[in-house]
């Protein structure tokens, strides 16, 4: 029984970590006013790139770096389409999903069935020996620890630094930010691409630590769950942490409940993330809903000095 409890909580963190990375990145992008629905595509490209580089070079950190950069590259495509060309952000994001699925599947075929270096658990001295908490929180791979650290860092950045304030200003009132001398276009490019970095990292976590292998479409919809989590988190990194581990927990609990023979309608639990995804569309389309839930006011609205909205 104890083992199952520990395993469930440990599983929640394991399953939540890729969600956390992708959600944190998307929070930054959306805070700047750019909605990027392409997380699934960027994660797949990150997963494929991470695995293939680890397979070729055997160097895990090079693999992670490459995955991060590829995520950023994909995001820069979205940035160009949605910021410079001012194409509908929903459409451009969806295109990114299909692009990532197609390219990773096509290039990835050569790597199916291969074995590559992967991240192993790294127990933190002392902390790792605390009963219950130790094995759940402090005996993980290093990417999970990076997940823990990135939350307070991003929180501090968003709320306590000038750059963070500028970022929020660009997402809330781009006109005013522009008038104050903040470069709206550059800011949006920057954070859309940083968002892509995080999605690439999320993908690398899946193919190098979670299920260390490459198989097509291995993210299996987690990019969409992350899109939903951004709303659940009301664009806040700390709530994102809670949400990511909670959503991760749901996917693990469904199995623990089956073993403990707890009758729970699993299908309904699995539905939650997708209900949130539907809300995303509402947020992107209605100003009133944006205000109600505290979404960045300029979310999904392209910026142009000439055409004031």
């Amino acid at each position, binding site marked *: 029984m104890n*083992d*199952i409890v*520990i*395993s*469930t909580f440990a*599983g929640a963190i*394991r*399953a939540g970590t*890729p969600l956390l990375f992708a959600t944190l990145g998307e929070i930054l992008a959306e805070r700047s006013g750019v909605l990027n629905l392409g997380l699934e595509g960027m994660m797949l490209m990150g997963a494929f790139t991470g695995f293939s580089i680890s397979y070729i070079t055997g160097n895990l950190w090079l693999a992670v770096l490459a995955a991060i950069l590829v995520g950023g590259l994909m995001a820069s495509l979205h940035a160009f389409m949605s910021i410079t060309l001012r194409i509908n952000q929903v459409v451009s994001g969806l295109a990114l999903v299909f692009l990532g699925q197609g390219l990773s*599947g096509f290039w*990835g*075929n050569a790597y*199916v*069935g291969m*074995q590559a270096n992967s991240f192993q658990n790294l127990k933190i001295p002392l902390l790792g020996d605390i009963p219950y908490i130790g094995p759940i929180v402090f005996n993980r791979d290093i990417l999970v620890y990076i997940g823990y650290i990135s939350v307070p860092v991003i929180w501090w950045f968003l709320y306590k630094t000038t750059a963070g304030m500028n970022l929020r200003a660009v997402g809330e009132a781009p006109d005013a930010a522009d008038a104050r001398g903040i470069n709206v276009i550059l800011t949006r490019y920057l954070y859309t691409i940083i968002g892509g970095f995080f999605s690439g990292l999320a993908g690398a976590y*899946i193919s190098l630590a*979670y*299920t*260390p*292998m*490459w*198989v*097509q*479409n*291995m993210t*299996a*919809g*987690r990019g969409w769950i992350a899109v939903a989590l951004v709303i659940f988190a009301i664009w806040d990194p700390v709530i994102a942490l809670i949400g990511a581990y909670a959503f991760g927990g749901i*996917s*693990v609990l*469904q*199995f*623990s409940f*089956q*073993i403990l*023979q707890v009758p729970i309608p*699993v*299908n309904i639990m*699995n539905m939650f993330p997708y209900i949130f995804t539907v809300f995303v569309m509402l947020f992107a389309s209605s100003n009133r809903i944006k205000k109600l839930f505290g979404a960045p006011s300029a979310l999904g609205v392209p910026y142009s000095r000439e055409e004031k909205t």
Partner: protein
Amino acid sequence: MKKYLFLILLTLIGLYVFAAPLKVAFIYVGPVGDDGWTYAQNLGRLYVQNYFGDKIQTTYIESVPTANAVNVLKQLALNGYNVIYTTSFSYMDQTAEVAKLFPNVIFENCSGYLTGPNMAVYFGRIEEAEYLTGLIAGSMTKTDKIGYVAAFPTPEVIRGINAFALGVQSVNPKATVQVVWVNDWYNPPNEKEAALSLISAGCDVIKSETDSPAPLQAAESKGVYCIGYNTDQSSYAPKTFLTASVFNWGTYYKDDIQAILDGKWKTHNFWGGLDSGVVGLAPMSNLVPPQVQNLVNAMENAIKTHSFNPFSGPIYDQSGKLMIPAGQSLSDQDLLSMNWFVKGVIGSISK
């Protein structure tokens, strides 16, 4: 002179048409790179392409949504494909619909039941291989708890679980088979979590039935034995892999295409077991002791020669009710609609 030229030309055209390779198309439900069901199907395609060489020309279309299947099938038929294999139950109705429109094209659906003059169905009795893997699992477990990672409660999957459990119980009546439904054919991280949950509940042998090798990785990471499905996935768990029940689709495709090339093809409902070679075991690893390997080989022979049927009575259900009395065995009809678990299986079937 002109007349002769014309005749020569006609002969040449005739020769070309006659010698033109048989065009064979495959439609896959998932990506070739899933390393599971579709991967195994594609191995079958590569096998026949290699075997027949210039005589046939194969192609495939992967990840075809059911809603799109009719268009894809029509397009393939219009492009001159002579034989089209639709490799998932979910394409059965669409295949039958298009087969009526193209009477000169041969259509075959995997695991369906609808046939027609130019439409056949085929499938493998994977449960016969599952029975054998059950013998191994039952012999290897020390905690007497075996975990089974399953996709969806369909009769096909339930048959496999039951055959596996019957194999387990025949060598180890104390052992139980705990089933966890992933509710997905393919979701690597969730498949892994399902396996890890079973391991944390004390299972020391993991049997997977879902499409990715993730459950085997979970077993490897925890140092418990594992048994795969679809293809030989030993490379994912070099230290703990015991064996896998596998589909050898190439065996069926070879005989089928040979019949087509010979002009002897007839519609059929093929459901081949171990005797046909369509299903089988991946090579057992060194972890399986010789006496267990001998037992498995003996039972495999008995099933192949039809002197033994895994589904012969007495068989009890989970509640201990006698379902099949001694001396009787389940009919194919019963097997195709199976919706109950045998004794020794822990888990429920949502209806």
